[in-house]
């Protein structure tokens, strides 16, 4: 646990900067209030007020922590005011979407590395597909899927998959092409089939690339789910929580939902990282 000290140090710096920023950014409001009320405020009063506003421009760390505590530990997990409940709703769609997206991305990459028509034809359009602003088509996807009788988890997962498949595909194409000429030649002398070359050479050499992409993909997949939760009339999940927080100008609630989401994303990335370590070590690649 040699990481603890560095992390704590960095955290400490961040929290200090955060407090300073909170005071600075919230102060104009305090002064404006005082001016409207026609009173003078001392600096210490300003500091106290800026760290305890109800709708701060930037909530202070302890306010966010307090809110997080209240909405996780202090609430039943089945309660709709519990972040654990909303987090789970988001997580389940994220995982499903990530699974779909990763599978699609890998399959696409395989297609692209093995079929020239795919490489030439599909890749440019896969790229183009990613430039479509997802928030614009998310409601349309949901409307279309709804009219086909599909609702609930699936539409969200599809959007999550849409965002995560691309990084996976790009990284995987690179990885599948990483074996050097001699490694490929060896397979040729064995007259190995494409499938054999794939399983025994291309796939193992793509692993470092795959995992770098999976980390990006899992974060993207979470973003996708949250995006899908915003407009889709989905009324639960961290995205819905963020939205309603924004709608009522409750900065503290936004920040705590945001932190919950980031915590979720970070844990997912860490989990992928751990799997990466284990896999690479098993493969003898983590020297």
């Amino acid at each position, binding site marked *: 646990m040699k990481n603890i000290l560095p992390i704590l140090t960095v955290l400490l710096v961040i929290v200090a900067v955060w407090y300073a920023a909170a005071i600075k950014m919230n102060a104009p*409001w305090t002064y404006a*209030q005082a001016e*409207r009320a026609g009173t003078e405020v001392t600096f210490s009063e300003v500091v106290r007020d800026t760290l305890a506003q*109800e*709708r701060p*421009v930037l909530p202070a760390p302890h306010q966010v922590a307090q809110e997080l505590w209240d909405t996780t530990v202090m609430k039943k997990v089945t*309660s*709709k*005011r*519990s972040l654990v409940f*909303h987090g789970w709703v988001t997580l389940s769609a994220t995982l499903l979407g990530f699974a779909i997206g990763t599978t699609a991305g890998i399959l696409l990459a395989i297609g692209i590395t093995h079929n020239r028509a795919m490489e030439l034809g599909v890749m440019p359009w896969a790229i183009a597909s990613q430039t479509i602003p997802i*928030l614009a088509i*998310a*409601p*349309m996807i949901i*409307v*279309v899927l*709804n*009219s086909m009788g599909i609702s609930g988890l699936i539409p969200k997962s599809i959007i999550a998959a849409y965002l995560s498949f691309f990084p996976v595909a790009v990284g995987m194409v690179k990885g599948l092409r990483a074996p050097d000429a001699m490694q490929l030649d060896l397979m040729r002398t064995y007259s190995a089939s494409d499938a054999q070359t794939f399983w025994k050479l291309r796939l193992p050499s793509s692993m470092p690339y795959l995992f770098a992409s999976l980390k990006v993909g899992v974060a993207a997949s979470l973003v996708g789910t949250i995006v899908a939760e*915003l*407009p*889709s*009339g989905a*009324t*639960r999940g961290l995205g*819905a*929580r963020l*939205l*309603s*927080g*924004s*709608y*009522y*100008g*409750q900065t503290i*609630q936004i920040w705590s939902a945001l932190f919950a989401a980031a915590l979720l994303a970070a844990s997912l990335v860490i989990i992928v990282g751990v799997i990466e370590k284990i896999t690479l070590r098993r493969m003898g690649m983590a020297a």
Partner: protein
Amino acid sequence: ADDVTLQLKWVTQAQFAGYYVALEKGYYEEADLDVTIKAGGPDIAPVQVLLGGGADVMVDWMPSALAARENGAPIVNIAQPFKSSGMMLTCLKESGVTSPADFPGKTLGVWFFGNEYPFLSWMSKLNIPTTGGADGVEVLKQGFNVDPLLQKQAACISTMTYNEYWQVIDAGISADDLITFKYEDEGVATLEDGLYVMEEKLADPAFEDKMVRFVAASMKGWKWAEENPEEAAEIVLEYDETGAQTIGHQVRMMGEVAKLTAGSNGALDEADYQRTVDTLMGGGSDPVITKMPEGAWTHAITDKALN
């Protein structure tokens, strides 16, 4: 029981209390209906959902409904629970706005996504260009909340009497520091939350019958909600799955919404309709709708429902 899906224009809040009350109190059940209420959101276009077959009936504002109709979406107003408009511009006094004549040169926050029509009609009536400059107004697409006003990024923002206005107040700005311009007072009021269905579906007597029962039960819900604002707000809160709403805010919202539904028994008032159409068509060079709509509403449902 017959299935009915209702698509709301916005998230679960007291703005839609009547429907939630009817659901909770069993008025729909009594009418042999199995009603599903779908909450809306900032990027849900209810018309799209209706056309896509995701809902049978929707809540929408008349300006966007009429614009959609002109765009080839055959939708019809079957009931109008909201009598008056709750929309207004809320300005900070310190920005120096005292009357619409002060707007030029100022920055105004406006909701888009089909909600901009009343504002655009008003501005063209005032002959103020919305493209900025010294004698025009700078328009901002306002996000979800009242921040632009609090952050002084805009002189005025769009608010509803029952919602955003109170958020400004809650944020600590006293009513004395604000000045409001209600569309109702400026003579540019347009009809808000009405119930709309697809025209072709109305031809089906079974569907018509369903809607009759639906409107009747909904109006019963609305009238109960008007009389019992506190309980109605609690019911709404019950149905809010985000868990973000507060009871205080919803009770107050219910109180304000009740003022808007008060004058309506559910039937569309033709005069109100005509005024809305006139406002929208009177938009000078760039009117919202260009030809007089035909068959955009019907009394067929309310006539049966209310007798």
